């Protein structure tokens, strides 16, 4: 099994970062849209747009914020990757 060179420290270090608890944040946007009774209503409207529509649009920036936080938490500081 182990005839390949052992993982270098950088790679194994990244393993732990990949398992960062910050990953749980990625569940936030999914949970916000997976339960329609939560947002299946007309009011409050925004610029005449019913809640159902603008709520789901509003989850997009929330998702972006969560993903960005997880990205920063799971990536080496200063490195480009």
């Amino acid at each position, binding site marked *: 099994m182990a005839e390949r060179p052992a993982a270098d420290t950088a*790679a194994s270090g990244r393993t732990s970062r990949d398992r960062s608890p910050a990953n749980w944040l990625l569940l936030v*946007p999914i949970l916000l849209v997976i339960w329609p009774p939560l947002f*299946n209503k007309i009011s409050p409207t925004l610029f005449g747009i019913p809640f*159902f529509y603008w709520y789901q649009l509003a989850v997009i920036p929330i998702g972006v914020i969560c993903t960005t936080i997880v990205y920063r938490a799971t990536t080496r500081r200063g490195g480009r990757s």
Partner: protein
Amino acid sequence: MSAHTVEIVIFVVLFVFVSGLGFVAARWRRAESMEHLDEWGLGGRNFGSWVTWFLVGGDLYTAYTFVAVPALMFGAGAAGYFALPYTIIVYPIVFLVLIRLWSVSHVHGYVTPADFVRGRFGSSTMALLVAITGIVATMPYIALQLIGIEAVLKTMGVTGNWPIIIAFVVLAAYTYNSGLRAPALIAFVKDALIYLVIIVAVLYIPAKLGGWSSIFSAADAKFTKSPNPGDGILLGPNGQLQYATLALGSALALFLYPHSVTGVLAARDRGTIKRNMAGLPAYSFLLGLLALLGYMAIRAGVKPITTGGKPDGNTIVPLLFDQMFPSWFAGIAFAAIAIGALVPAAIMSIAAANLWTRNVYKEYIKPDATPAQEAQMSKLASLVVKLGALLAILVIDPQFSIDLQLIGGVIILQTLPSVGLGLLSSWFHRGGLIAGWIAGMIVGFWTLWVTPAVTYTAAGKPPTVTKDHFGGSGFALSKLGLDTKMTIYAGFVAIVVNVLVAIVATLILRAAHVEDGVDETRVDEYVADRDDARVHDLPSGEGEVAPVGST
């Protein structure tokens, strides 16, 4: 005809410009040799954040999406908005799961999801099933892109098959010539045009139509008047489970489609993919706004063009543009939709061709194929795939492709245990995966088969069945003996059965000590990044696998 002259001229000019780009793309970030699948089929595996953003965006948000999602909103209301949560759900999944495919593929030189399954579970049978599923699911998707172009041409008053044949011949020629670099370069133009058109559309059209409230009241009035109890600007009580499962199932299916995998594997490193998962939702926002064009069309009183007695809902967006915009801008909008068809069609045909070459041709027909022969075979296969899609639209009823696309989403979902869960764990027995796949396929086909398409003629009366089979993705739970009118996404039922069968069969096979496949991957390979020495360890032994991006 003359009323559309300006539109047609602008459309043709942009189309010709983009086709030129497609050919020039072969010289872009040129590799020493295109005679390798990593070059032709994955663009050198070296695309940075911006290119990946345009490529994957161009890949996932297709021309068919642009015409079909608003058409669905136009016809059914809120249920059509599932496309938004669907694209919200997909990115976290990619962030956590598909990125592992990037790493392990770069260590082992995998080009397709089926390559991965073969290595992970030591099963060339399961790999073949994944490859066939991928090819079958992708082909109707390519055909549907033609429907997007057709809707635009119809609106401009251009009829006949020749324009579509010419468009596809051009597409086939530059894909053959430039590989994945062609759609990557064209995607820049496509997305710039699409963003321009949608942003102008959502600012300009509502202002002209008296604001958002008047648009939503018009939609509400239409659905209240319609005898169908399922439509409306909110979801009906029986449609909510369908909405959620369709969004979730479609998201899982999307990341299993071979063309999404191709887009992700072409990225330079893990950071590129992660940054993109934060950046790609910009397209979701666009899609969420674009879907509302369906309601604007209701407010504007758009009547879909009828062909052969049947109204073609896909023409409502082009018609809305035609009606609302000055003709020069309508021309740009039409070109944006048509070019929007070319990018995904090219990537899909490349992905399907790679599956054929790696998992059928090299596995079963010519095991000693050199990298150059593999690349050549893939180029030819991409031509065949596109020709098949073209014939499916021109010779067979386009409805056939729409049905197949519906089935395609359900069947590609059946590769979730082997590809998706396989990236997280090697627990499944290869025999269990095969059993699960078979069970999922049977259930998937059955649920779609027993789902009729219906129309409501009068309120309170039972609907008339317009089509007995493959009438939609909403499977009635009452068919399972449950006392409810709720529907659920057919693919969701199938994948639940698939996973359960795979688990039970794995336990049985383990208990019976049936020999399992050998996993050639290691835990740490799923997190390897570009600076990892093993990542360039591609198995071909050819000189050109050295980092091509440095040239």
